[in-house]
């Protein structure tokens, strides 16, 4: 079985999948991916289930070497310079790292997290149905901690499938939409208006538990202590210093600060990708609009296989489906004809 060896890697990089919801009533955080759309796109590119475990890469560069056989990967999410043996590799395409070759990735350019999916997934021991790393709880597999240089991931050998690319909708830079509540009545109308009209920045001290926001002080009506209640991905709690914290997948399952609003699920991945220091705004929407957006987002995730294109050719999705059902690897174009030069920087998605 081939291995993907971590040759170098920065902090905040770990194996993530859909996480382990279901035990929040016992205090177990759900963990899991920060940006679902990018994880799903990377997985679909290499023929995996959309929420299969992949490598969530933090903002810094990284390098991975194939050992013991060729390994097919795909990168989606934040854009980075990428090359194999000095040949540049585009985002949102699959690519095969030949045995002994190294995929080198630069800094994230327009976001925080990129997802490196590996054909066949990552071999590990699921805990509560998930390989997702939660370093604080000592959970995750194959390593219950962020990845480090020298780590080795057992993976499947690359099939002779044709390399492909995926066409994703352009990333919006519209305000991050929120639904007010559950404790918006702990804030005056003025405080809520200030929260919604102000420019916010993500603090550099943010992590997978919470993103700290920098902006005007949001004051409480009755103090900052409430009796603890349950939290969500995207809960925006306001502690005593009036600087909101948006709770992320490794969050405590309950919290004792008033929550002024919640980021809608369809915008959560886009919010998670906002880099430290970049400014953004919130916008309040109705529950009906938030839930319509959630259904639209689910539709987008479902549509990803239809957005695949064979590298350099129109892709026959029906042939792919038939071949997969029949258990054969797909070869609409001979994989041997694929060459990294086929992807130039200019071809990268906007």
């Amino acid at each position, binding site marked *: 079985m081939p291995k993907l060896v971590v040759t170098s890697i920065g902090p905040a990089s770990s194996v993530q999948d859909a996480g382990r*919801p*279901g*035990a*929040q*009533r*016992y*205090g*177990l*955080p759900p963990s899991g991916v920060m940006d679902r759309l990018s994880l799903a796109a990377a997985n679909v590119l290499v023929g995996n289930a959309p929420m299969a475990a992949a490598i969530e890469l933090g903002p810094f560069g990284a390098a991975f070497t194939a050992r013991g056989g060729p390994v097919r990967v795909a990168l989606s999410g934040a854009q980075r310079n990428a090359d194999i043996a000095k040949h540049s590799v585009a985002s949102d395409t699959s690519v095969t790292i030949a045995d002994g070759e190294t995929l080198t990735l630069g800094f994230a350019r327009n976001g925080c997290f990129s997802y490196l999916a590996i054909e066949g997934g990552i071999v590990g021991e699921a*805990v509560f149905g998930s390989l997702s790393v939660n370093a*604080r*709880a*000592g*959970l995750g597999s194959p390593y219950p901690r962020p990845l480090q240089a020298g780590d080795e991931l057992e993976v499947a050998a690359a099939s002779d499938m044709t390399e492909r690319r995926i066409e994703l909708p352009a990333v919006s830079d519209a305000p991050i939409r*929120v*639904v*007010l*509540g*559950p*404790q918006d009545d702990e804030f005056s109308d003025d405080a809520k208006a200030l929260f919604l009209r102000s420019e916010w920045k993500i603090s550099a001290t943010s992590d997978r538990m919470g993103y700290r926001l920098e902006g005007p002080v949001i004051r409480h009506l009755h103090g900052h202590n*409430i*009796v*603890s*209640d*349950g*939290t*969500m*991905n*995207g*809960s925006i709690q306001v502690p005593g210093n009036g600087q909101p914290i948006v709770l992320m997948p490794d969050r*405590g*399952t*309950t*919290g004792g600060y008033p*929550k002024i609003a*919640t*980021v*809608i*699920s*369809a915008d959560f991945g886009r919010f998670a990708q906002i880099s430290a220091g970049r400014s953004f705004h919130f916008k309040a929407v109705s*529950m009906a609009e*938030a*839930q319509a*957006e*959630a*259904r639209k987002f*689910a539709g987008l995730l479902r549509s990803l296989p239809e957005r695949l294109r064979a590298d350099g050719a129109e892709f026959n999705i029906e042939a792919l489906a038939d071949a997969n059902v029949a258990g054969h690897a797909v070869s609409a174009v001979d994989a041997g004809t694929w060459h990294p030069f086929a992807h130039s920087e200019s071809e990268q998605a906007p």
Partner: protein
Amino acid sequence: MAAIPALPRLLPSGDCAITVEYSRDIDDAANQRVLALDRALAAAPIEGVTEAVPTYRSLLVHYDPVQIDFDALGGRLLALAQLPAEAASRARRWRIPVAYGGEQGIDLEDVAKALGTTPDDIVARHVAGNYRVAMIGFTPGWSYLSGLDKSLHMPRRQNPRLMTPAGTISIGGVQAGVQCIAGPSGWHLLGCTAVRTYQLHRDPTFLLEPGDYVTFSPIDTSTYAEQLRAAEAGEIVAELVA
């Protein structure tokens, strides 16, 4: 303390969760209602609901908005809330052994001083309590207990500790706690138990359920050391009394 209203408030927690709120305070009657709704939901599952998280005052119901929307789910939850509360048939009673004071409970003497009594008296009052698991949260297995003797109510520390040991038995405000994994805490540390309310690869992984009853029994440090080894080997150590 305000009376508990007949019907809870439905508060939006984004588009994928509803906070079903019975009270804004730590209130025993509200917690009983929360746990009753949690049981009712488990007994009659609603399609689209993924999990429920009970707390002192509210039940957070996570759901998939593709399968059910806020209004439909809210209506179903209010209907469940109006059913007569069934008795907690699954509620169990646990006895948890605790090594009090010394290295295991570094705040015991200070708590005794602050309350104008002796460490032995604090232990006696803590052991005399009959507690209920009101909620589990914050970190895996962190069990918040209601039923702390009024004479032991005291404010949390001004400066929370960044690290407190696994198995810490503590008090904070009107609550008592059983902490499982090491982590930050602003509560007063009375002792330690070898019991792990959460332990991976043990059956059961999670020992306590919200609604279970808990009492404490004092042990000496050599018994505690023995129990730590037993717990590490996967034993539950806690005694199921009923």
